[in-house]
């Protein structure tokens, strides 16, 4: 009797939250899929529109460029910052808080101020002017510079997350290893190359997966800085179709393709991870960030 009640409790505890998640995400996703297959009757016309749209391919390539470069930037910086925090641990509260600050500010607040910095008559061009340089069109639609601005601002905002994940990894490396390497005559660079990076791999993997997914989903950074048309990515492309072009079904087709795109990439990465012998269990920590 008790046993049955226990099982009932556990079923309830497991399935209630999962049902809630399904109602909020899986059901809408599925109904989006159904709507995307409807163009005055069941058809692939919406997908065909998207695939024949130059803007879609432009958004796809921007998506990949932004995600790739932003990941490179935030991982180089994140590793540097994590090493810095690890080295100065506890001694400089100012540095510690400053590292986190860009992420602690609500995203939209950060983006709003980034926009004021990058506007043609914004603070960055003002600073350039005061040292006698001409300003640049940091946000000019369709330019490489606008794409670069999006990448840098995105990295600026999320590097703290990467830093924290990597710092967590650094703290698990026993200091004896460094001492041994030092006695063997390894310099700082060699210690980084042969001790830190290999042992950081699990943390790096978690951070990479988490940030890779977020970088592909990028939406608000683009919308606030350049507008949906300035440096289109798949999210803003779908949003434009939905809110301006009033073509909800085509918009759903575009967003379904983004979801599939992300799911496929994640499956590949997780699959590689499993094949290289890593335990899937160790990667749950990325979920909390």
């Amino acid at each position, binding site marked *: 009797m008790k046993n049955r009640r226990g099982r009932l409790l556990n079923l309830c505890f497991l399935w209630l939250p999962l049902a809630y998640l399904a109602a909020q995400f899986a059901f809408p996703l599925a109904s989006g899929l159904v709507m995307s297959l409807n163009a005055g009757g069941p058809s692939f016309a919406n997908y065909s529109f998207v695939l024949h749209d130059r803007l879609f391919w432009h958004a796809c390539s921007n998506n990949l460029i932004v995600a790739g470069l932003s990941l490179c930037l935030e991982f180089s910086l994140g590793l540097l910052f994590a090493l810095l925090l690890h080295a100065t641990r506890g001694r400089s509260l100012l540095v510690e808080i400053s590292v986190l600050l860009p992420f602690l500010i609500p995203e939209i607040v950060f983006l709003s101020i980034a926009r004021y910095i990058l506007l043609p008559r914004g603070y960055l061009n003002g600073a350039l002017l005061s040292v006698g340089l001409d300003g640049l069109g940091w946000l000019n639609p369709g330019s490489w510079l606008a794409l670069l601005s999006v990448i840098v601002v995105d990295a600026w905002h999320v590097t703290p997350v990467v830093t924290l994940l990597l710092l967590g990894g650094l703290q698990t490396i026993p200091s004896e290893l460094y001492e041994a390497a030092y006695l063997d005559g390894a310099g700082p660079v060699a210690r980084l190359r042969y001790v830190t990076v290999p042992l950081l791999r699990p943390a790096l993997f978690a951070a990479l997966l988490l940030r890779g997914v977020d970088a592909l989903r990028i939406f608000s950074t683009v919308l606030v800085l350049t*507008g949906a*048309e300035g440096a289109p990515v798949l999210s803003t492309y779908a949003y434009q179709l939905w809110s301006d072009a009033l073509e909800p079904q085509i918009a759903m087709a575009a967003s379904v393709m983004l979801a599939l795109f992300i799911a496929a990439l994640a499956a590949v990465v997780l699959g590689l991870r499993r094949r290289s012998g890593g335990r899937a269990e160790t990667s749950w920590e990325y979920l909390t960030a």
Partner: protein
Amino acid sequence: MCVALAFGLIAGGCGAPHVPRRSLTVAMALLPGEAIRYRKILADFESVSGTEVQLVTETYGDILHLLEAESRAGRGRFDLVELDIATLGQARNDVRELAPSILAADRKLFPETAWRVGMMANQLYFVPHRIMWQAMIYNRLKVPKPPTNWEELANFVHAHPGKLAIKGALYEGTLCDVAPFIWEAGGAMEQPTSTDTLTALDFLAGLAPGLNPRSAVFREMSVLEAQARGEVWIHFNWPFAMTYLRDKGLAPSVNLSAPIPLGPKGRATVLGGGYLAIPRSAPNPDDAQLFLRFLLTSDVQQRLVTDLGWQNTLPTRWNQQATLLYAGFSQMRAYLRARPEVQDYQVLSNRWQRALAAILFEGTPAVVALKPLTAWAESLPYEESARPAS
């Protein structure tokens, strides 16, 4: 949750009236601030008519979707809906013909074009609620003599590259900036590759290299911000642009409005705003008609101007500062034109937007960009009512 439910039941139980009171449900695209002020006008109607009014605020897009859904279902809750002027053609089959007596209202409340836009096949379907049109906004300190015709506009762009902006984002606003040029050349959106239409587009394509580089993403408010910051000296916008600039202390001291530059075949500006209609599925259409009559009195219209800041009766009864601020808009009042009224307008507009982006920002020749949509655009079943009176 349960508590709220219980409260709801109790309140519902106690409040249920035994005698059915007359009630009216209206959907309007008002922002929260506007809705507060609009409710006062509704309260007056309630006390005059004894009809209870429930105001639901939604975006224009959502109202249109609601209207279509209720029409399909054959029953609905809305008695009156506000629709964007650009979607009237699309909404026509879902709304009722209005009694001719509505037209007995003071016709002078709105320009004649604005009334005609609400008529289709000589029947009134839509009543103007708030109408507006575009004029040219210019920085009087940088541009003491604003360009008055196309040639002067071209000279301005060559002399000051980057200082003219158009709203070129992929949205309806792009057509509000471009359509007047097409009309001023004698062309039409319905005939994308007619000689006159191409004259206008070639003129704009000639200006394109000198446009402000952010034109491809500008919308009403972002271009206005650029004007306020001095990044842009001339652009085209709605009357609320002057209100914005005045509130910032940047008009009339720095910015003023002027007519849109004269084209080879005349002058034109685009009519915009919201129209009211009674859905086919309205439960209380008679009360809705009553409300329309109340709304179309000059007293109420005057309150819409003073309390809500709408420009319906422009340019009457304005103080000196307003006369100065809205001078360009007053002068454009005689040159209003509506965008094509047709069921497929949204698709037409989307295809035009894409073509314009290609012409203005990617250097595609106009004839190449527009060719693919010409045959289709020319064959659409347009309503004739919104054509300018000859």
